[in-house]
């Protein structure tokens, strides 16, 4: 038992060193811009770069649009399948698994060939069309996480009783969706939304190949041309990922304590 515990500490220590050192390295590197002294110069340079502001805003808007499309698409579908079409569940689960199987670069290659200017649906012909295509692509990328989160959330409430109660009070389908189901799975939806945000904000492949001015391609451009700014950007990106994951924990905990007080 004693030796067992020593091995455990060793494994943990190795893990901590491997995971903490690159973070320290990045942080240290990002502060090195001014010669001979640590400074926040790299951060100021990046934050005041108009391209940073533009691409970052673009990606935030893109993430929000993606989250909205995802919610509108996934919540009613998952609800409907659980309520009325249980036999379709394996089909839906298979489809929502596909984005993990088919690499994003392959899917976007398909988009470029299918939705070019010569096709019936020439989405890549205009900037707006390409933005829409990119938002749908991101929705697709986030589908496995969004669907699973919402489906699990729906599993924990009694949607049949809730629906019947609402129907007997004369509620319409839209009312049931917006006022009964969505509030009840809000935590699951928010978890999926934060994860979607974390995925979309720095996504590179799709944005680069569709030629959109997103944050991911900007990161790559800075990485290829600058020395200290990339490290500052990596620190910012890591902080964003942490915030998203932290918010998921917060909403989940909040929900648990709420459920506990209700009982």
């Amino acid at each position, binding site marked *: 038992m004693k030796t*067992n515990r020593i*091995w*455990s*500490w060793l*494994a*943990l220590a190795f893990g901590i060193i*491997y*995971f903490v*050192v*690159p973070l*320290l*390295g*990045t942080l240290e*590197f*990002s502060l090195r811009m001014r010669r001979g002294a640590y400074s926040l110069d790299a951060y100021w340079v990046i934050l005041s770069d108009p391209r940073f502001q533009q691409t970052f805003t673009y990606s935030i808007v893109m993430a929000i649009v993606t989250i909205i499309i995802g919610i509108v698409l996934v919540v009613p579908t998952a609800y*409907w399948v659980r309520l*009325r079409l249980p036999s379709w569940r394996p089909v*839906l689960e298979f*489809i929502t*698994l*596909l984005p*993990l*199987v*088919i690499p*994003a*670069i*392959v*899917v*976007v*290659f*398909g*988009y*470029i*060939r299918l939705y070019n200017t010569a096709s019936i649906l020439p989405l890549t012909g205009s900037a707006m069309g390409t933005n829409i295509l990119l938002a*749908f*692509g991101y*929705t*697709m990328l986030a589908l496995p996480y969004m669907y699973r989160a919402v489906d699990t959330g729906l599993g924990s409430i009694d949607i049949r009783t809730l629906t019947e109660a609402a129907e007997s009070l004369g509620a319409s389908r839209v009312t049931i969706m917006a006022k009964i189901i969505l509030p009840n799975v809000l935590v699951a939806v928010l978890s999926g939304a934060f*994860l979607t945000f*974390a995925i979309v904000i*720095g*996504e*590179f*492949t799709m944005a680069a*190949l569709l030629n959109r001015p997103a944050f*991911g391609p900007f*990161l*790559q451009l800075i*990485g*290829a041309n600058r020395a200290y700014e*990339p*490290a500052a*950007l*990596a620190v910012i*990106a*890591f902080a964003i*990922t942490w915030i998203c*994951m932290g918010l*998921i*924990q917060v909403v989940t905990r909040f929900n648990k304590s709420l459920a506990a007080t209700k009982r």
Partner: protein
Amino acid sequence: MPANERRRMSLDWLGVMPFIIFAVLFLIWPTIYLVAGAFQDNEGNLTLANIANLFQPSIMDAYWISIKISLASALLGAFIGFCIAAAITLGGLPAWIRSPLMTFSGVASNFAGVPLAFAFLATLGRTGLVTSFLFNVFGFNLYAHGFNLLSFWGLTITYLYFQIPLMILIITPALDGLKREWKEAALILGATGPQYWRMVAFPILWPALLGTILLLFANSFGAIATAYALTGSSLSIVPIVLFAQIRGDVLQDPHLGYALAFGMIVITGVSNAVYIWMRARSEKWLK
């Protein structure tokens, strides 16, 4: 009543149609289009020539190095991730370590892409923290001893940053499923610790282990952003070759590009299919 019921049955499927149409338009049709293109020539006739063209040395090399990197990062990631997961579940470490470690794993497994490449350049690049630390303190020049971040091992070490946490996230529930009674029963019957692992725990865990390794393999096989930001186009792994092909038709043959994409789908598809099958098997024991 039966007529009413039947009419309703026939309309229920309409509810999932928006989703199905979305999936067909933005996931299934684009993929099928590429797969079909892989088996057609420029005039649209059926052919296997594109697939045969994949077997030229430069493309085979790209597949080979992709497979090697994915396999190395999957095996190492699985091994290290397993050790850490075993340490926190069975190793007698204080219980409070577990929750922050799982949260961190959630973050790190999503911290991929371009910023990850920056982090490793700042750490193991030519002027990175570890590189200069080794040189200043021990006088050891990492790069003079054959190490290069923009290489097979460099990329593998970088990929481990999201592979290890993913392994921890997936395998921890499986390790939790190992019942205490099994170990006690084995020890009472006179088994040693290693014997328990070899004859009881591993036979139960191996479908979960093998399945997760395949998932990690597919996970790194399709990844491009990290590699592209790290190495530019100097390391020809399959996704980077495909990226260059999409940008500028470097293979001078669109249908060869389709075949390249088809090859990627086959590899990630097979490993994911086996993963799902293995997971179903392991769930029999680990409920």
